[in-house]
Structure formats: structure tokens, C-alpha cells
């Protein structure tokens, strides 16, 4: 069976090629460890200062919710200027100020505006802003002011105990798969052509589709292993939380990797030498890795750039994995992202088949 033998040959090559192993596993794991040490685990707790001028059922409920989260140790303050200085000095991570008469504003149908003060250099700020924002959103939705509704809401946000590291981890999985698939496939294809391996295969009665099927399947399998290892290290060593359906997460990994493998084949076909392939692969993979929000939310990008960057395949993959893994939501909650990633997969595969050449 030529396909089985080719598949075995590809798996052996992947396992024996140290450089490939580095890019596929060690490179993303370095990020997992570095960021895990900074932002992971329960050791690191951020101090959240609260000035409760409202002193009503809503503010009491929110403080109770925040205290229930492992990520924060909540401390109450009276003097706003002194508290702001604490945040500025880095002694406290955040300062949350509930305005006076919050309950009555809400019951009257108005908008109460609690203030969250944070250091702009604080990398995990977007996560905290998101978490607090979600709590408030829920209250805004059910603006009846009754204590009972608040209690109900507290259950709803129970799961939102997310660290910055939890946010990063799906990004590292996607990034690891992307860099390896693009750079790895591009350089291997250029190497096989340079060494005339492809031509030698073409001189045999092997069917071309068996050759591609074997390479693609071996790499898809490897990407699942990558995802398990990268996410696994994050979960076991740094207590990261990954929620959501594993089968659906795997499906997104395979779909994303189809795009990256196709891009790898295209670059491999366009490059004359292995060096050119690896250089071009890096030139595509590296900017995408930073722009697609692997390390920080894309919301901080200028709006024009963000609009463009949102269409990158890595953006779609990262957003899908994050949406599913952080909030335990199903794949079909994100039809636009799924459609974008599917379009990339089909489009890039068609281009790859068209431009590929053996010699």
C-alpha cells in the first residue's frame, strides 16, 4: 500500500527531524512556560481595591462575586486619591469604584457607571475589564434592581474565573501549529524539489494524490498531538482552564491547520531554494503570529489595521478556540468565524493544488 508506506515515512521523518520537532513543540512550549511563569497558576493574585459609595444590594453582590474569584484578593478603601496612587505604584492591580445611588439609577432605568482604574501597562487588564464588564452587562440586562435577580446572576458568572494565561493558551496552540505547518511544509517541499526527491517519486508509478494525502494526514495528526501537548502543559503545569467540547476544538485545529499547510505548499512551490522557502515562510508566519492576537487582544490595534487583521486565518482560528475554550460555547455560536476559516481552507487548498510543481 503506497499510501500507508508514505504515511509511515512522513511520521518517521517528523519524529526524527529535530528541527521540525523544535518548531512544532519546543517553540510554542517556550512561550507557554515564559507566559505561564508570569501569568499562570493560582500563586499570582491581583489585588482589587473597591470603593463602595453605592453601598447597596447590587454593589454588595458584585463585591461578593469578585471575592469568590481566585484571581483577586478584594480590599476595601475609602480615600480615592490614595487608592489611585496604589494602582499607579503597582501595589494593587485594579481599583473599582461604585458610584453613589447605583441601585436607584438602575431601578429608574438609567445607566450606572462604575469606574475601573487600572495601569495601562497591565497586560492582563483586557481580561479583567472583560470579566467585570460581563458581570455588569448581566445586571444591565436584568435591570429590575431586585436582590433575587442579582443572586441568579452570580451563578451565571461563576465560571468566569479566567486568568490572562487562559486567554493566551489557545493562541499558543494556534501559533505553534501555524508556524510549524507554514515554515515546515514550505521548507520540506523546497528541499524535496531541490534534492529531486519529488522528481524521483514522479518517476515511479505512484499516484500524486497518495503522496499529498499522506503528507497532509501526517501533519494533521501531528497538529492534534501539538494541540494536546501545548494545551496539556499549560493545564498541568500552569493550571490553565480549557473548557468546551474537545472534539469541536480538534475540528477547529484541523481546519486551521489545513489553511496553514496549504500556505506552506504554496510558499514551497514559489521558492527556488530551501532558504528562500524558510525565509518567506517566516515572513508570512511571524507578522501573522503577532497581529492575530496571540499575545494580546486585537482590540488594541488601530481600527483600520484591526479590520484587516480580523480576516487573517490565524485570527479566526484563535478567536474560535478562545471563544470555545474560555466560555465553553459550542462551535455553531460563531458562524462568521467558522465561515471565514472554511473559506480560507477551501481557497488556500485550491491555490496550493494549482501552483504546486514537482521540478
Amino acid at each position, binding site marked *: 500500500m503506497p499510501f500507508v508506506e*508514505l504515511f*509511515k515515512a512522513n511520521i*518517521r521523518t517528523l519524529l526524527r527531524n529535530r528541527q521540525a520537532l523544535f518548531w512544532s513543540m519546543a517553540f510554542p512550549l517556550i512561550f507557554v512556560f515564559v507566559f505561564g511563569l508570569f501569568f499562570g497558576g493560582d500563586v499570582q493574585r491581583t489585588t482589587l481595591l473597591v470603593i463602595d459609595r453605592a453601598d447597596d444590594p447590587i454593589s454588595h453582590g458584585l463585591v461578593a462575586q469578585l471575592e469568590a474569584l481566585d484571581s483577586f484578593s478584594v480590599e476595601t478603601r475609602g480615600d480615592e486619591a490614595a487608592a489611585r496612587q496604589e494602582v499607579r505604584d503597582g501595589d494593587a492591580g485594579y481599583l473599582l469604584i461604585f458610584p453613589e445611588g447605583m441601585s436607584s439609577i438602575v431601578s429608574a432605568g438609567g445607566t450606572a457607571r462604575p469606574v475601573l482604574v487600572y495601569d495601562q501597562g497591565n497586560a492582563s487588564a483586557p481580561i479583567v475589564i472583560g470579566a467585570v464588564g460581563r458581570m455588569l452587562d448581566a445586571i444591565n440586562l436584568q435591570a429590575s434592581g431586585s436582590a433575587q435577580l442579582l443572586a441568579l446572576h452570580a451563578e451565571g458568572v461563576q465560571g468566569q474565573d479566567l486568568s490572562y494565561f487562559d486567554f493566551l493558551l489557545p493562541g499558543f496552540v494556534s501559533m505553534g501549529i501555524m508556524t510549524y505547518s507554514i515554515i515546515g511544509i514550505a521548507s520540506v517541499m523546497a528541499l524535496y524539489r531541490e534534492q529531486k*526527491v519529488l*522528481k*524521483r517519486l*514522479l*518517476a*515511479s*508509478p505512484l499516484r500524486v494524490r497518495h503522496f499529498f494525502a499522506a503528507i497532509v494526514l501526517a501533519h494533521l495528526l501531528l497538529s492534534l498531538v501539538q494541540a494536546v501537548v501545548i494545551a496539556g502543559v499549560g493545564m498541568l503545569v500552569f493550571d490553565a482552564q480549557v473548557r468546551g467540547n474537545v472534539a469541536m476544538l480538534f475540528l477547529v485545529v484541523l481546519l486551521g491547520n489545513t489553511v496553514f499547510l496549504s500556505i506552506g505548499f504554496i510558499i514551497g512551490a514559489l521558492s527556488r531554494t530551501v532558504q528562500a522557502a524558510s525565509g518567506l515562510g517566516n515572513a508570512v508566519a511571524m507578522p501573522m503570529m503577532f497581529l492575530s492576537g496571540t499575545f494580546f487582544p486585537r482590540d488594541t490595534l488601530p481600527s483600520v489595521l484591526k479590520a484587516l487583521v480580523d480576516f487573517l486565518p490565524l485570527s479566526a482560528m484563535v478567536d474560535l478556540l478562545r471563544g470555545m475554550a474560555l466560555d465553553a460555547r459550542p462551535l455553531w455560536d460563531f458562524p462568521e468565524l467558522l465561515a471565514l476559516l472554511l473559506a480560507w481552507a477551501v481557497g488556500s487548498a485550491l491555490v496550493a493544488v494549482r501552483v504546486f510543481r514537482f521540478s
Partner: protein
Amino acid sequence: MPPIISVENLVKRYSQLTAVGGVSFSVEQGEVFGILGPNGAGKTTTLECIEGLQAPTGGAITVLGMDVAADPRGVKGRIGVQLQASSYFDYLTLTEILELFGSFYPQRTQPMELLARMGLESKASARVNQLSGGQKQRFSVAATLVSDPEIVFLDEPTTGLDPQARRNLWEVVQGIHAEGRTVVLTTHYMDEAQLLCDRVAIMDQGKLIALDTPARLAETLPAPYTVRAATPTALDANALLGLEGVLDAEMSDGTLTLHSSDATRTVPALIALADGGLRELEVSLATLEDVFLAMTGHNLRD
């Protein structure tokens, strides 16, 4: 018996360049057929068109009774191909590569048997990049034999090898021939073509300029034989030129060199003329190098 390979008016043009400009020949079952010529003569292109690796611009090629253009996979299944300077997978052992290539064919030979035949048993679990140049070439010949092919194509099998490794590979080729397989090889080494090939096609600038056995090709020259002898006493130059078959004569440091169109007539006449005064008489037939030079006006390795 019809020829095992027939090439009729093969033309291969790339956008600007005509690599092969109308070449016709046929290869008989069981012979070693050489295509000789300098770099850029169109040898490799011709070979790759026959192997089904390149589509000809014009002409017809039949291999083992099959039209190559119509059924390239059918042809590929029954031939063995060694490419010029090609490599194999870097991270697989020799055995694994042979198993892999064997799986592409309906019939196959056991990897260890092939390696043993090439003297590479001890390298079975080595990788290609751990082999010497000669071992690499022998391995790539082993890989062409994995399908037990009827025709074996070798593209410049000894280029870049040291003399010992070349001789070694010649024995391998002779072994393949002895098994009854047809061998088609390209080379730019005259001695190789002369030693290995039953018939030689000489190509230059995309054209076939001669095709015959090495001996008959040499005989097409006006003076294919060189007669050398040491003569203690000088011989009369006019008498030498008057000997039957002699076209020119040269004496230097007591060594006589004659170029002759017919050595069987020249040698007895020379012996009679020298009257017992000859030492170290030697007769040699012209090389393909001389043939090439005479036909093209330039050297093979220009």
C-alpha cells in the same frame, strides 16, 4: 523482435531553447545502450521524455510496446529510473526507503537482497547522507531495481565518482546487464561508453550525430588505428608513409607513431620494413573522444 524502446523524431522545446531537435533511434531488448555527449547536448531531456517524466513537444515514443504519452504510469511501473544527482528522504534508513519505493510497484524485490547485491548490507540502517559518493550511487541503482524492472535508466551514474568507485559501478551495470535487463545510460565519459555499451548514440546540441557500436564508430574515422613502436634505428620517413594504410607518420625520441586506416595491412608491412628492429609494438583503435572531435570539431568536455 520489435525494439524495446523506439523514439521517433523526438522534439523538446522550452520557451526559448530547443533542448532536443528531432531525434530518432531505437533500443534493442537486452542491450546496454549509451547516450554520449557533452553537458547540454540533450541527453537527460531525451531520457526523461522516454521515462515519462517530461512531455515531448513533438514526436512519438514507445516503451515496451506502450505509448509513453498515452500511458506514462504503465511505462513507469515496468522501468527503473535513476535520476542525475537525485537524493532520497534524509530521515529514512536505506531499508525504509527501499520498502517505501517497493510499495509503489506491483512486484518488488526484498530490500536486504538489493542491498546485498550492491555490497551495502552493513549500511541497511544507515541514512543516505551517511554514505560515501560511490555508496550513494550504488544505493540509487539499488532503488531502480526495487521493482525488478525490464529496462533500467541510469543518468550519468558515475559523474563525480573517484576511479575506484567508477570501476565498482561499472561492475554493477555489467551485473544488471547479465541478468538480462536492458540498460540505457547517459555519460560524458568515453571510456565508460566504450567499456559498457553495446551501442552508443552520440548527441550534440540536441541532435543525434552518430549511432553504432563503439568499434564501428571508431572505424568511421579516416585513420582509426594508431600503431606505436620503439625503433632503435631511425626509419626512412618516405618509406613509412608509403606503407599500406598509413596516413601520417611521426618519429620522436626513438618512438614511432603511425596513423592508419587499416592496421591489419599496416602492421605486417611495418615489420617487414623494420626488419627485426621493432620493440614494444602496440596497436590501438581510436576512442569515442576522437570520434566526437572528428564529427563536431570540438571536444566533449568543452
